[in-house]
């Protein structure tokens, strides 16, 4: 009944690929959508400028988790520069479903965490900021 919840989306949601911890990860970044409570931690093992391995952990809606699962499948072996070049349209195209405007943030959380990891950003909020916001 619903274009957004095609079988492969639900399959990625229920059986996420590359899910779990990545021992020896070189780049890790976590973020969330406070509005809905989606959370994703993206962990990369970068070797010789390439993604040797990737794992993600998360919880949240089907769109956010399926998006992360699909994304991890395609990035293994890619160079950091290739990852940094992935854009929003690519993610939405890869999902292959119509995403309503209110759900775009869900779909893009995976990309946000991947970019954070690829660029080696510190966790958000930074420790100092977290203390003052406490």
């Amino acid at each position, binding site marked *: *009944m*619903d274009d957004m919840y095609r079988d492969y989306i*639900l399959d990625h949601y229920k059986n996420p690929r590359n899910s779990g911890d990545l021992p020896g990860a070189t780049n890790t970044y976590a973020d969330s959508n406070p509005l*809905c*409570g*989606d959370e994703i931690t993206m962990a990369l093992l970068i070797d010789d400028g390439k993604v040797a391995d990737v794992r993600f952990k998360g919880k949240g*809606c089907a*769109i956010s988790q399926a998006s992360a699962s699909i994304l991890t499948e395609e990035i293994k072996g890619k160079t950091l520069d290739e990852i940094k070049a992935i854009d929003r349209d690519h993610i939405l195209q890869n999902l292959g479903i119509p995403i*309503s405007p209110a*759900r775009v943030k869900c779909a893009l959380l995976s990309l946000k965490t991947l970019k954070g990891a690829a660029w080696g950003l510190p966790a958000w909020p930074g420790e100092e900021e977290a203390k003052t916001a406490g």
Partner: protein
Amino acid sequence: MAVTLRPGAPARSPLDVAKIRADFPILATTVHGKPLVYLDNAATSQQPRSVIDAMSGVFEEHNANIHRGVYEYSERTTAAFEESREKVARLIGARDSREVIFVRNATEGVNLVAYSWGRDNIKRGDRIISTVLEHHSDFVPWQQLAKDVGAEVVVVDIDDEGRLRRDQLSAELRKGAKLLAFTHTSNGLGVVNPVKEIVTEAHAAGATVLLDAAQAVPHTPVDVRELDCDFLVFSGHKMLAPPGSGAVWGRLELLERMRPFLYGGDMISRVSVERTEWNELPWKFEAGTSSYVDAIGLGAAVDYLTAVGLAKIHEHERFLAGYALPRLTEIPGVTLYGPKTTDDRVGVISFNIEGIHPHDVATIFDREGVCVRAGHHCNQLLMTRLGCAATTRASFYLYNTTDEVDALVRAIHSAKKVFGV
């Protein structure tokens, strides 16, 4: 978890809902080809024709800025604006309409009190008591004030059915507090606090009391003199009025001593290079051109609600809650939050479906024409307490029907089917 529903809900509605629905143009619309089933009234409500007409009447017949012109149209618009204030004052039992200040919404009302009263009365080391049920609008302003002046915010917990922990509240009040800021009715759980008892106890402990009545004034009779609170805030858009309307009520003697919140036009009586004298109440707190058309819409909404009767509206919503609660409870995998009785809860029903995130639930509901809220409901303290990031929330109003509750139940089954849970 097995849930035992205690009796208490009315057996039938006292309202002629079909007649009421005919007054709301939007309720005849369809969405995704399905009749609109609007169950997001705790977020915002719809407008009856009389409110729409009152507002377009200003634009079409006599629009002019209020409190300024000495010509006919300005005087007519000013009169309509001030008449709305009288209507709001009567609705909430205010002694004097000067105690009613128009603001954009309840959030602005709390900020007005926090900046104006708070900054002169809350000092370093003082304590502010809040609760885990508070909407962010009644928590963040106090949290930030406390940070600025070095005060402390204490958050009172709830029990496992969502009722305020009175033992904890009493203990905190005994330790002393400058302010108790709490909600009449929870926007997340629908639980209704024993407001009068709590206010009495807080006053005995020497605390000033601000009551967030955003989920109360639209749904039940509220009388500030009976409740005996010191400040009360609510939003117009949750009570059939347009967004941009709302009010803060305060005791005259407190408002008179308070400094203004926003400075500028209309809130002054005399300005020189050296100093400014403030306007009288309530205009001291209404800087700049007010959202006067919205306020006039609020007056029309008050007329509508008063004509239907707020006691009857309250009974109708308890009837719907009593109809919905057992039907939702019996669906496998559905977890309901809040009291499982209609004695001290209203038609705000938060739930989760095992295995489906609330945003996926709401997206699937949308395709069935069913509008519900999914998320944290500006209630992250409560979500943390419940141990979930988000819930799906259905909230009823005077125009909702048992057929719409049935549509909600069908939509839950659809969502479960899509997700195979």
